[in-house]
């Protein structure tokens, strides 16, 4: 059971003279829950966008379910589902209409659509709101619907880019319960990004810490602590990313980091 489903090799992405991703390599095993943990601007979303064919890498090789992501886009696209960092629902359509559109785009046979959509909407507890327009949904409901939509075509890999941003603690917990369940029951691989330390620690089997476009460490929480000779993921993270310096500064990074620290302490 150690089949590699997702791999990156020496991947670089430059935007003009900004190097967003600076030569990262990693493997994710089938069925694994893998977290990309890093501060704002570390290159998490850029990596996900490259893995999901939204951006072409400047150099390097990306493989997903046996397909080269840059040359076999359509096959790669059928193999994953994604919840983007930013909202991506059609607000003027209802929940079911958003799901139907997705089902057709992914060529799910018309006959199977109603049943699968019902199953997914029930999973995220939105079945009773199926006919409501998205513009009447709360942030948490939208997020749940996006997750249901990402799962509709039964992808092999599910990408979640900061899926719990802006969700309350209860919704976060329920969401992660679904995701863990899916990973266990369907052997689905989960790749998610976060800057909440607790989330990475609680949910992920493997954590890769990314900073300034580079993976600075990877492993389980225990392995990371061992590598850095620290006692908690928080300490390991601080040691690796040196963020106590940035925390003092008044820029956004510092602010967000403070928030994420506070969040991780709340636990």
């Amino acid at each position: 059971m150690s089949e590699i489903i997702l791999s990156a090799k020496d991947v670089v992405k430059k935007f003009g003279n900004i190097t967003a991703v600076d030569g990262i390599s990693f493997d994710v095993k089938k069925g694994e829950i893998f977290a990309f943990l890093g501060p704002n601007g570390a290159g998490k979303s850029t990596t996900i966008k490259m893995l999901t064919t939204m951006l072409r890498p400047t150099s390097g090789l990306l493989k997903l379910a046996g397909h080269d992501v840059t040359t076999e886009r359509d096959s790669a696209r059928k193999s994953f589902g994604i919840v983007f960092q930013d909202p991506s629902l059609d607000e003027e359509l209802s929940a079911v209409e958003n799901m139907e559109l997705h089902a057709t785009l992914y060529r799910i046979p018309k006959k199977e659509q109603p049943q699968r959509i019902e199953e997914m909407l029930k999973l995220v507890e939105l079945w009773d709101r199926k006919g409501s327009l998205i513009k009447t949904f709360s942030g948490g409901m939208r997020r749940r619907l996006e997750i249901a939509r990402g799962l509709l075509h039964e992808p092999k890999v599910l990408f979640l880019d900061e899926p719990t941003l802006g969700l309350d603690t209860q919704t976060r917990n329920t969401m992660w319960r679904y995701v863990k369940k899916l990973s266990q029951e369907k052997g689905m691989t989960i790749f998610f990004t976060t800057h909440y330390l607790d989330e990475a620690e609680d949910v992920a089997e493997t954590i890769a810490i990314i900073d300034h476009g580079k993976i600075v460490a990877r492993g389980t929480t225990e392995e990371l602590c061992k590598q850095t000779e620290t006692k908690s993921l928080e300490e390991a993270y601080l040691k690796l990313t040196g963020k106590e310096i940035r925390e003092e500064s008044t820029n956004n990074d510092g602010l967000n980091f403070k928030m994420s620290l506070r969040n991780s302490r709340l636990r």
Partner: protein
Amino acid sequence: MDLNIIYVLWLRQIRRYYRSGSRLLGTLGQPILLLLALGYGIGAIYRRAGEGNYIQFLVPGVITQTVLLSGIFWGIIILQDKRFGFLSELLVAPVSRLKILIGSALGGATISILQGILVFAIAFVFGFRPYHWINVPLAFAILVFMCLALTSFGAGIASSVDDFQGFQGINNLIVLPMFFLSGALYPLNNVPTFLKIITTINPVSYMVDSLRFLLANQTHFGLGKDLIVMSITFVVAIAFAVDRFNKVQM
């Protein structure tokens, strides 16, 4: 199977349209205003100048204006999709961009066609009558052709700009001049040379002229020339849309 995909993308546009009643009213308000203000306001002078019935002359221009605005403004949906993220969902799906563009643009064109027909119907209230009913189906065919070209143009513009201000700027700089400098509102026979040059290179002039020929039996360029220019415009607009849409990045 893939016709299904084009169909659902088309359906999405139609659904969004009938859910926004304000958009329908907003786009029909202008033609009615034009018919009222110009049709009645200028009609009397026009007749005294010996040019005949101004409403007959004006209606093809107003229909063109309606589909011009509706086609280009439809592009705002692409811009919205880009700004509010839904385009990510479309672009990451295992469907070619061309299909996404075709399905969506057909939806936009359908809406424009409906609006053109509505204005045609409203014009009757203002006393407009087609010169030969027999030409009306042909005028309809031309309307469809125009709507496809103009919607593509709108999609191309929306794919090229990043925000609503940019889109508004394009509207003021390109779309409004294209309408006002087209012979939609006045005959081109006696205009000054510079205006004549502009109207001759403006593809909208030919759209107006073809509809005017078929609906009111008046023409400036002749239907043959109209059709040639419109065909070229059609191809260019579609190439523009495909090219720009292919380059959109989220």
